[in-house]
Structure formats: C-alpha cells, structure tokens
C-alpha cells in the first residue's frame, strides 16, 4: 500500500501557515516523496483565515487536498469547524495552547495543546517562528523525516541568522517531550 501523509494547517493570515506547509513539503520532497501543497485564502487575503493542506506520498498523488488529516495544526480556532470533514478518530490535533478555552475537545480525542507561540517567544524571542516550532512538532508526530532532511530544506530557503533562528525553532518542536 502506498504511504500517504496528510497535514492540515489552519491559522490567520500572517501566522506563517503557508511557509510552514511549504517547508514540510520540501522536507518530504528531499526524501523523494511526492508532495503537494494547496492553500485556501479568504476573499480578503489579510486578517482572514489561511489554510494550507499538505499531502505527501511515496506514490502518485491524485487528490491534492487532505481527505482525512493525519495531523491538524491549529493556530486559530475559527477555521476548525470547516475542517471537521477532514478529521477522523485517528487525526492528531496539535493546537496552540492559546486555544485552550475554545472547546477543541469537540473535534476529537487525540488533541494536544502545545505552546508553539510561547516557546518561540520564550526561547527564541521571536513569536514569528512559532510556525517552525510547529513544523518540528509535526515532523516528530509523523516520524518519516530525519533532522538532516529538514535542515537541508531550511537551508534552501534561509541564509545566515535567519536559517539559524528557524532551525532552532524546528528543533524545539522536534525535540519537545510530551509535557
């Protein structure tokens, strides 16, 4: 059977949803998997919802969007109702801890609150890289990609300090123990 991974990332515009999806895809591509990323913008691109769907497979990808997500990453809660058809009992939801009061329990049992933003802020003094923390965390959950492959993917995007910052953020996510 073909291996297929489906990740759904929801957030607000500006939270780095698309970039996170792209890097996830690129890391898998370096393993010679097929990858597809699609994005849904709101009519207004700003402020509104941003959703990235990343599908990775070792064989051909036909349906380019997520059918049943392996992982859902949530930086904002608003888009989750719309994502419900893409979840099932196996879906792991990784939500920023700021969403604790949003009644996310309704979406499933494999729900984990992770302090993406707090870690980024506290440890790297940059809440902007919370998406990279989340990327690390997703990679950890999926378990297909080695740290070298992520590093490679990041290197193709970022240079110098920016690379270091982002890589550090990914590592935080990758190495996070359940807390």
């Amino acid at each position, binding site marked *: 059977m073909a291996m297929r991974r489906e990740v759904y990332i929801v957030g607000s515009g500006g939270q780095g949803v698309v970039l996170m999806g792209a890097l996830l895809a690129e890391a898998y591509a370096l393993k010679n998997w097929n990858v597809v990323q699609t994005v849904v913008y*709101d*009519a*207004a*691109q*700003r*402020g*509104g919802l941003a959703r990235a769907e990343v599908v990775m497979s070792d064989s051909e990808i036909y349906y380019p969007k997520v059918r049943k997500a392996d992982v859902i990453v949530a930086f904002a809660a608003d888009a989750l109702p719309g994502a419900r058809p893409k979840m099932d009992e196996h879906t792991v939801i990784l939500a920023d801890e700021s969403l604790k009061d949003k009644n996310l329990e309704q979406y499933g049992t494999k729900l984990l609150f992770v302090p993406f933003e707090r870690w980024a802020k506290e440890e790297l003094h940059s809440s902007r890289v919370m998406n990279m923390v989340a990327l690390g965390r997703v990679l950890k959950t999926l378990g297909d990609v080695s740290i070298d492959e992520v590093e490679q993917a990041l290197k193709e995007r970022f240079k110098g300090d920016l690379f270091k910052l982002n890589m550090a953020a990914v590592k935080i996510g990758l190495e996070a123990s359940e807390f």
Partner: protein
Amino acid sequence: MVNENDAEASFVPMSSAPDKWLRKEHLPHIWCPGCGIGTILRQVIEQFTKLGWKNDDVVFVTGIGCTGRASGYVNAQTLHTIHGRALPTATGIKMARPDMHVVAMLGDGDGVGIGGNHFIHAAKRNIGVTAIVVNNRIYGMTGGQVSPTTPQGSKSTTTPYGNVEPSMDVCKLALGAGATFVARVHTANPVYVGQIIGRALQHDGFAVVEVLSQCPTYFGRFNGMPDPVQMLQWFKENTFMAKSPEDEKEGKIPIGVFKDDKTTPELSKSYRNLWEA
C-alpha cells in the same frame, strides 16, 4: 473606560450618529491593521451624518478591490459592482433617480486603471456623482502589483526592479477630462478629508476627491514603510497645500481643492429638460 452601569456616568458618545451609517454586524472589516480605507470611510459617513441624509437616500457604489469592499459596511443602498465599473453603474442610477445621492468609492486601479475611461467620461458628462478615489498607489486586493499611480521607481510584486513608468496624476486627469469639483487630500489629516468630502458630496455635478491612503501591507512593506505610522508621516512630510495640481514645491505632492465650478449643469437634471419638450 466608561462603565455603562456606573450610576454617576452621564457621558454620551460625541459622535454616535454616524453609527447609523455602519453595518456594525459586519465588523470587524476585512482591511489590514492600519489601512487607510477605514479612516476614509469613517470620514464619509461622518459627512452623511452632518448633512442629515437618510440611509435610503444614499446609493453607495464601489468596484472591486480592497476599497471596493467599502460598500459592504455602509448602511445605505449599496452596490459592489465589478472591477472598474462603479462609475457607469452610478451614472445609470443617477440618470434614473436624480433625487438620490450617488456616491462612488474607487480604488486607484479600479478608478483610473481599468476604470479610467468611465472616470474621464463621468467627468466629461458632469453626472452628479461623488467619486472618492482611494489612492494607495498599489493594487491592494490582488496582492501588491503596480498601479497606474505607483510612483516611478517604487517596488511592487510586478516591478521587482522598480517601476519604470511615470505615474498618473488623478487630479490632473480629472481636470483634463472636465470634472467640476476636484480635490486631493490624505489620510494623515482625517478631519480635512472629511471637510473636503463634505463639500464634494454637496457639489451638484461630478466631484472627484483623491485621497492618498496608506497600504502598509503592500505599498508600505515593499517601499520601506511597513508601519502605517511611517506612511502617515510620509504623507505629512511630502505634501503641501496648493491651488493647482500643477503647483510645484520641492518634489512634493500638492493637496487642496483645485476646482469648484458651480456653473456647469448637472447631467441627470439637464437631461430632463427634454421631457418637457
């Protein structure tokens, strides 16, 4: 902050009436933090209030773009038309109903890019429509491409090497086409924006108010002013009060009322003379 339950409080909102002009249930609006369109819209409805107009006496027409979304928030008879076509739609409305106050709010691309021909012909006809051109000097809605009003040399997603073309002067164009009221203002001075829009709304003929506005998200970000505060500062420092858009002063942009001609008859009214015949 006011505590509404405080028995002592006898504070009342200083400008509550404009709220009758807002579709509050649709807020927050879609515009980015610090985008000038909201400020301009505030000034427009402030004037509606001042003029004592009724909600259903105002037809508010927009095209497509960030600016185009304004019609959704105004509690009037509103039309969100297609890109560039607000003015001919407004012309049809005004011709049919000269008793309505017809106001069009246009983006720079919407108004003088794709809509340029309608703009000059609305001016030529002197149709009784107030055209407020929100000139953020960029295509905001589509993600920051160059617009006809983007200054030469400026960056955008489609001028990665800087804009090669000279830019269009909305006020000069309006004058050249025959508009009877023409003014330029900017969002760093909102009260003045309101004053001038107020005069334009009362003008019986085609009135153009070009409002220089900040798009921090694209124009600002690509051109070293990602913070709206920087953009307002820029407006203050790079404009001067003038009598004509031809006036020159150290490369700055002239601001002011450039024309206010009350003698040319308004078209929807003069057309009705044929009815008597």
